[in-house]
């Protein structure tokens, strides 16, 4: 419906001819014709994968262990054959769009089924031989042996979950191996180094080639999300801050700062098209986010809700500025919504009674309307000052 309304509006404005609008409508209808089938394909694959795991978990005792293992291998061989055939069935440039996208959906389904089968098989081996191993070791084995296959996926959503699984597994292994050997200060170092992980991920993503566009997009999305999450959580330490070993915390902070500088310096050529102030916006956002991760703990100020609100809003305004410069519209919208939500929470925190809350809301509402009016009148000048691309000056 939205697309149809947009097309009518664009035709009315003379941006498109009616023939062009019809062609667009026909193309999109063909592309999304089999969306339902693709959804069912994915659900079916997931159901098979979970069903296999559930079957193994029930530890079905009706057949002898060696027969179980043999049957499992036979099932695995047939699944692998199916997966290989789907990988080989690359859509041709002349195939219909819907056929091509269904073919890709089958490929994704085959990859998910193989992942599920591998996990279930390792669990089965552990059951039959009563190995008593740790679940994290099993997860690591599954991820390692299925990585070559997983890299043939073209689904960004799949890669987001896959990368999260890698992070959780590697993190869990590290904690498990170290927990009995680390002193408290070294634990602080590990926590301080954790925010560097998304920064490194973002750097690695920039090296990925075009054929791994989905993996690159997923890595970048995950890296930015985790980094901003770490920065937002960091501001919470203005509410309560425990004393920690600053030597190790500073080491983690310095390492993350160096990683951030390396990644931005590495990717600066990408921002070559930005005006100078646009590049500044990226540097400001990066610096402010790093400060939000590390300084609240370092400063050690407790019970300072206003510092939390101030730093949180400053962080997300800087993110909105940088996102506008980079033409990440969705991030601009998210950032401004987040700032708005935090301001609402400020009212709840600060104003105890209805009278002061009411006065505060009226004043701030009036200020917001004034800001919008100023922006409407001066947006081009303000946009140029902020270093935003001309055609992208937000309305």
């Amino acid at each position, binding site marked *: 419906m939205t697309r149809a309304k947009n097309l009518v509006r664009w035709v009315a404005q003379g941006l498109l001819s009616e023939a062009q609008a019809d062609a667009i409508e026909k193309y999109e209808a063909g592309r999304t014709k089999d969306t339902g089938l693709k959804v069912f394909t994915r659900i079916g694959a997931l159901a098979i994968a979970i069903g296999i795991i559930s079957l193994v*978990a*029930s*530890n*079905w*005792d009706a057949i002898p262990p060696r027969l179980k*293992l043999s049957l*499992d*291998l036979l099932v*695995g*061989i047939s699944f*692998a*054959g199916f*997966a*290989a055939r789907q*990988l*080989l069935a*690359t*859509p041709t*440039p002349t195939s219909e769009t819907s056929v*091509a*996208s269904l073919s*890709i959906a089958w490929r994704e389904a085959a990859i998910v089924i*193989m992942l599920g*089968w*591998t996990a279930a*098989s*390792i669990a089965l*081996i*552990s*059951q*039959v*031989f*009563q*190995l*008593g191993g740790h679940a994290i070791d099993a997860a690591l*084995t599954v991820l390692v*042996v*299925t990585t*070559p*296959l997983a*890299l*043939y996926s*073209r689904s960004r959503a799949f890669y987001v979950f896959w990368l999260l699984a890698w992070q959780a597994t590697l993190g869990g292994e590290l904690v498990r191996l170290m927990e009995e050997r680390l002193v408290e200060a070294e634990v602080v170092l590990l926590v301080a180094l954790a925010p560097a992980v998304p920064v490194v991920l973002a750097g690695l993503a920039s090296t990925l*080639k*075009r*054929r791994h*566009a*989905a993996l690159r997009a997923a890595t970048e999305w995950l890296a930015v999300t985790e980094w901003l999450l770490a920065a937002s959580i960091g501001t919470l330490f203005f509410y309560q801050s425990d004393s920690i070993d600053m030597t190790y915390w500073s080491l983690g902070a310095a390492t993350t700062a160096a990683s951030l500088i390396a990644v931005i310096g590495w990717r600066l050529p990408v921002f070559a098209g930005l005006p100078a102030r646009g590049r500044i916006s990226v540097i400001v956002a990066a610096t402010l986010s790093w400060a939000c991760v590390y300084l609240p703990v370092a400063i050690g100020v407790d019970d300072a809700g206003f510092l939390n609100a101030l730093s949180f809003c400053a962080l997300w305004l800087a993110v909105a500025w940088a996102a506008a410069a980079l033409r990440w519209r969705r991030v601009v919208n998210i950032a401004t919504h987040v700032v708005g939500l935090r301001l609402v929470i400020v009212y709840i925190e600060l104003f105890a009674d209805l009278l002061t809350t009411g006065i505060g809301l009226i004043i701030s509402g009036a200020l917001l309307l004034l800001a919008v009016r100023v922006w409407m009148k001066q947006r081009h000048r303000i946009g140029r000052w902020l270093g935003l691309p001309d055609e992208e000056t937000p309305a």
Partner: protein
Amino acid sequence: MNVPEAETSARMKWVAAFIPVVCVALLMVRGEVRSAASKKYLIPITGYDPRDLLHGQYIRFRFKWGVEAPTSSCEGPRCCLCLRGDEMTRPEVEYVGCEAPPDTCGAVLSGVEATRRQRYLVPEHAGHALEAELRDRDASVEVQCSGDGSFALGELYLDGQPWREIVYPALQFH
């Protein structure tokens, strides 16, 4: 947006698809080889928490090694258990240093691993019946000892019989 795929050989795709199968097959073979090559002893067990033997799909227990706490000659991870005796019998056990265990040891196990809480995976439908039998009978587990100090669990015995021979007939009457 569908990005056109770069040329990748068909062979690599077959390899990628079959690597998990090959690895799983190797793990199965490794399990069989270890089991065949290991030295086996029967060790009595006791519930880790008598009120909660059954935990999900496994029972929790600890071994009754029947050995005094390690002397000052070895501590923590450097302490190993030396098992002596015939296979498939209850062995004599003593603590020894892991670096230089006596040659008379039939098997040497990591002390930390052997004294830790253990898990025995059980079929879903037999868990409660098995838990009840464990409270009333003497239980022991076949321990398959490898040369590297690790071990795997074999059959679970109740009063000297494989547990299925006792639990499953009881299940059929219910």
